[in-house]
């Protein structure tokens, strides 16, 4: 019923995947975060787009 033009939607998916991977790699490599690491892992994986961004703003200790 829904025929989605994937060429149109692909950039959204690419942005989501890039953010997810960068945030996860950074989470693994960083020494400590604000709050437990596994919570941040869940936030990054389960909240689209905003999860990784919230992690980058509040999760990383500067």
């Amino acid at each position: 019923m829904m025929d989605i033009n994937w060429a149109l939607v692909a950039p959204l998916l690419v942005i989501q995947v890039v953010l997810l991977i960068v945030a996860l790699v950074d989470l693994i490599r960083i020494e400590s975060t604000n709050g437990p690491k596994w919570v941040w892992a869940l936030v990054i994986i389960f909240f689209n787009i905003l999860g990784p961004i919230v992690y980058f703003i509040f999760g990383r200790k500067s």
Partner: protein
Amino acid sequence: MRTFAVLFQKELRESWRSFKFLWMPLLFIFLGISDPIMNYYMEDILNAVGNLPEGFTITLPDYAPADILLASTGQFQSIGLIVLVVIAAGMINRERQNGTALFIYVRPISFAALYFSKWAVINLLAVLSVILGYGASMYYTAILYGTVEPLLFIQMVASYCVWILFATTIALMFSAMFKTALSITFTVIVLPIGVLVQSLIGQFWNVSPWKLADYSVQLLTQSENEYYLKTLLLTIICTVIFILIGILFTRKNASSVKV
């Protein structure tokens, strides 16, 4: 000038290492393309999740390209603006609080150079994000809905950038004045909530920096707006004043650095 170049490179490196130059433009691109795509598929989305009764029909409006750009601007003005100013509101005081600033303040540096190095980096980031975001939005709008006058579009993006410079300057000024939590609170009250107040009761005045974003989108549809130039000028003047206050407080609060 030499101090500025060194500090600028340091800021740039720090922003790069904390991935700001990656995720901020990506966020704005996402915000920019989500509206054209969502409105394009609105009928399908309503059919799939709307749980509409049998035989129910709705007529969706035919969007003009300017309407889609207006919707994208709305996204930038809410989520994009909040994220951007929260980052800016922590730039000066976070260094003071975690002690990094001590390494800088013991040297004979000019506080103007220190302030401008941060100002330049956050605005580089902001303008880059806004241009990429509007670029992505325009690209999709052009594919799905139609084009707008290129010169007007460039003018719109440029005057939106002036508004973003104003917003980050306010955030940086609060950052120089207060501690992190307080500066973020003030920034969120003045900017995103200011935008909200503006959209609720903004019809009572015509010239205010908070109106600049609306006016810049209206450039696409309305031919003449007598208040546009005044608003633009007022915004630029306010930005300069806030920069001066920011430098003043960067110097004044230098002693509040945690040792």
